[in-house]
Structure formats: C-alpha cells, structure tokens
C-alpha cells in the first residue's frame, strides 16, 4: 500500500496528502517528485496535508524542512496543514520548531494565504 496517495494541482499549488503508513523511502521519493513538479509546473505553492500522520519524527521533520527549502529556491512556498496536537507537542519537545515552514489550520486557510501572497 502506497504511503503517498495523491498530488493534485489546486489553484496553482500542489496539494499533497501524506498517508500514515508512509515509509522513509517513500517520503524521500516524494521530495524528489515534488521538486520536479514544482519546477515543471511553475506552481506558487506546495501544501502538505499531514492530518493523517499520527507520528512525525525527526526524519520526516527534516525531509519536510528540506522540501520547504527546495521549494523556496524554486519560488514556491510550502505549507504544512493539519498537524495533530500530539504531533505538534512531540516535535516541539524534540526541539523541531520548523521555523522556515509556513503552517495553516487547513487547506482552505493555506489557499487563502497563498492568494494573498
């Protein structure tokens, strides 16, 4: 079963829903796929929906941070949406504040922020 189910183009942004059983390998592959698509489709934003993720550890956190960096270099902003409360608390306790990533409560919020940008 694939961990990453969908990448959709919504209003000039790539919306990615990450599934809970995503493996390290899959998420690194995702990073690459996304980087290529950002460049190819010249999108303005990447929205990572992690509402299905019950666990986000330092590896996944780092991959997300790297993706944000890559996107920015390709003139797109990355938004993380749907982080669960327990995940937020745990990341903070691990010292992962992810300061260079934008966050939003939901897809709607992220899109509205993108529109304003």
């Amino acid at each position, binding site marked *: 079963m694939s961990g990453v189910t969908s990448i959709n183009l919504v209003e000039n942004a790539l919306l990615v829903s990450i599934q809970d059983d995503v493996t390290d390998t899959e998420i690194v592959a995702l990073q690459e796929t996304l980087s290529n698509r950002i460049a190819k489709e010249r999108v303005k934003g990447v929205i990572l929906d992690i509402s299905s993720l019950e666990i986000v550890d330092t590896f996944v956190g780092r991959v997300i941070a790297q993706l944000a960096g890559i996107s920015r270099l390709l003139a797109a902003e990355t938004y993380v949406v749907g982080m*669960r409360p327990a995940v937020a608390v745990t*990341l*903070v306790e691990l010292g992962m504040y992810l300061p260079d990533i934008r966050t939003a*409560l939901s897809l709607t919020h992220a899109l509205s922020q993108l529109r304003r940008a």
Partner: protein
Amino acid sequence: MPQTATANILSILETDFSGVVEEWLGTQVKEGVKRSDLFSDSESRAQNQELLKAFVKGIRVGVVNEEFSLEDDAWEDLRAVLSDVSKERVGRGVTPTEMATFVLALKAPLFKRLEAMPGVEGGKLVREVLMVTRLVDAFAIYTNEIFIGERDQIIERQRQEMLELSTPVVELWDRVLTLPLIGTLDSVRAQEVMENLLQTILERQAEVVIMDITGVGTVDTQVAQHLLRAAAAVRLMGAECIISGISPMIAQTMVQLGIDVGTVSTRSSIRAALSDALQKVGYVIKTTEAS
C-alpha cells in the same frame, strides 16, 4: 494426627467466627483506627465480617503446604472485598497507616485464641503464631498497596479538576482563543495546559491564541521556555500566538536572561492583543456615532 498450623488457625476462625470479628473490632478501637466518626458500628462490623469471611475462604483453599500468595486465584474474593472496603475507607478520609493497623489488629484475637487452644503444645504454638503473622502481614501489605493506589487515583482526579478550573481556554471571539495563565507554571502543568490548548485550537479551528501572563508571578527561564514551546506548538498547528501581559519588569527580566521570543508577537495588555487578534481574523473595530 497432628494438625498443621494452618488447620489449627482455620479451626479457630471457623468455630468462633463472630467472636473473632468482635475482638478484631475491639482491637481496632483500642488502636484508634476504627474511625467511628466516619463509619457507623454496623458499617464497621459488616466490613470486618466480609473481610474475615474472604480471608477464611482464602486460607481454606489458598494455603498449600503452608505456602501461599495473595496474587493467586484462591484469594480472589479477599482481593475483591479489599478493593471495595478500601474504596469506601479512602473515600471517607482514612489514612494508609490507619488502614494497615486496622488489618494488623486481627493478630491479637487470633493469638489469644491460639494460646487458649487445647492440645496445642507449647513449642508448636510458635508455628501457629508464625503462620498467623505471615498471613495477616501479607494481608496488611496487600491492603496498603491497594489503598495507596485508590488514594492516588482520587488525588489525580482532583488535580485534573483543579487544573481545568484554573486554566480554562476561553473562546473570546470567533476564531480567537485566550488562555489566561495564573500562578506558577511547572512542567507537568505546562504540558497539560498545552495539550488542552492545542486540542481546543483543533476543535474550534481557532486562528489566533492570546496567552495572557498577567497573572503569572515570575517569568524565569523555565517559564519562558514553557511559553515559547507552547507558542511554537500553536504555530505548528497553523494558528498564531500573541503573548500578552508583558509588563516592563518582565520585559527587562527577559532581556537580562537572554530570552529571545523569536517571531512570537508580544503585547503588554490583553486589550492590545485582542485588537491585534480581531484584525488578524478580519474584523475592523469602529466606535458607533455619538449623537
């Protein structure tokens, strides 16, 4: 045929059950652990009877070759009765020491009756006394553990209730939450406050959180760390945080301690924070025309 110590003890309990119950009550009174202020005579007697009945049952089936373990199935009844009695007693304010002494008081009536038992030679009496001691001691120790467990649960529940009362998350306006922090912020409390706050953000889809520290006594490095962690977690979920109630003195302390709030907004008053928050969620505050 020589009887085992256990058999002798059992025969005492079976032939003079009510006598033992009464004397047990008597010893409890003498040791000051009956707590007539909390339990009526009939309640106390009923508890003792139930306990002794279960104790006897356990001895009858649960002692093999003079060995026993209260964890075994044979002692299930005793454990069940003990749990009920402990809950009752803890609920009314009995202390663990009182409870343990309450149980240990059973030794006195048993020793007395052993001494008076016909046909038990002097030397053998030691065996019986030892057995009674082992049984009642095990009983008392087990009681203590259950008792403390019950008490811990009550304390924990009370603590939770108190916590909820003292740190409510209030929805001040549509999509604006406020968290008035009062008193001290230790690690445990900070953690629970944070969990509650984040859960509320999710449920209410709040976009702005005002953490007000006007009621917090001192802001030292630890408190600041808790605050900034909470603010970071709020941001990770997609909401914005404003820390309000930063007095000039707190501001000075924070600078002196080298605390860097980073990108978190700070305001000196709730009023200012609220004004900011409302604007962020799309409201404009206007005065009505004066006539």
